[in-house]
């Protein structure tokens, strides 16, 4: 599998350097400007070059992706980033997140369940196949599940569809299902016979089996 041991750290601190604290904070503050959503944010992280992604720590990935988002949304310019100081006034008029509002923003979060407009296509207990599709943009289908048959365990509600939402195409909320897959079906002979793996899949990721 190539990635080696898990190497969990005993009594791990929340941050391993003070810049990680600032990276967390600056990322959340910028998110609170409301210029992009969580799906665009995830896409900007996974869109790093694979060699860069795998060589970067978590907060490095966050900062590299944040710079991309800030440039895309006219918050900063490449000249700003190269020089390390602001070269021009902001082109965006958005009030910054204030210290006194942080608790409320964290407590509110970003709920992404929406009211159902259509009945769910599948019900609990239904056999479904995870479609073998390869969208070119953001998607949340794990590769290992594609083409495999599983059973719907929960009809979880209607949720914002990340494949569209990440690219400014609207929320286009869809029914979401938790689908349970058999470990040996996924991983083949010699794999753990007691294993089952569930994924949470939007309706358009699935087809009748």
């Amino acid at each position: 599998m190539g990635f080696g041991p898990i190497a969990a750290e005993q009594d791990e601190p929340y941050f391993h350097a003070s810049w990680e604290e600032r990276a967390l904070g600056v990322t959340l503050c910028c998110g609170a400007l409301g210029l992009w959503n969580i799906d665009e944010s995830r896409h900007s992280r996974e869109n790093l070059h694979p060699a860069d992604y795998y060589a970067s720590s978590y907060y490095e990935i966050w900062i590299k992706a944040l710079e991309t988002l800030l440039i895309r949304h006219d918050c900063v310019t490449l000249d700003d980033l190269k020089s390390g100081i602001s070269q021009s006034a902001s082109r965006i008029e958005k009030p910054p997140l204030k210290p006194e509002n942080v608790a409320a923003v964290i407590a509110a979060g970003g709920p992404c369940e929406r009211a159902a407009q259509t009945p769910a296509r599948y019900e609990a207990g239904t056999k479904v196949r995870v479609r073998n599709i390869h969208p070119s943009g953001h998607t949340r289908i794990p590769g290992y599940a594609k083409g495999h048959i599983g059973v719907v365990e929960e009809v979880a509600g209607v949720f914002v569809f990340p494949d569209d939402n990440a690219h400014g195409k609207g929320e286009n909320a869809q029914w979401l299902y938790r689908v349970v897959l058999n470990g040996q079906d996924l991983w083949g002979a010699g794999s753990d016979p007691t294993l089952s793996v569930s994924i949470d899949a939007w309706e358009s990721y699935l087809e009748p089996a």
Partner: protein
Amino acid sequence: MTHSHDHDNELDPMDARVRALETILSQKGLIDPGAIDVIVDTYQNKIGPQNGARVVAKAWSDDAYATWLKEDATAAISSLGFTGRQGEHMRAVFNTPQTHNMVVCTLCSCYPWSVLGLPPVWYKSPPYRSRAVIDPRDVLEEFGVTLSKDINIRVWDSTAELRYLVVPMRPDNAQGLSEDALAALVTRDSMIGTGIVGMAS
């Protein structure tokens, strides 16, 4: 800048990069550095696995609460004051003598922040993200957890916006303990599913 740990003029490249970004955004009026301080304090001191431990301890002590947690985890957890960012849509999954549950996000690093706080580095790293779904028993061994061969393993890959909290089994000899004492037994890893709750007898 509010940092106070410079020892000389050499900065780690990431340190310099984040400082520059914070400076630029402050100059443009898009961020207030004071808000960063509050965010860091929140996740250092207020939101962490101690929250999840309260949920588990209450479920261990109160059958009606455990039932509510099973049926509507978001509401049951919210009733203890734990809400919001990366905990908007919660599910609680209960370990049983037959089944051990383990949570991963193979696609990125989704994690129930409202009850567990910031994820540890290993949870966000490729080894755990790739191996947890393929050979969780081997992964558990690396965490010092040996499961009997007849215990089923269920891995929950957090591929959408549902966030999973594992409710570990209460140790057999923990009868009669207060909720506070029970909460003190519950580890972060036991609520991810990479640990079990033990108690010295």
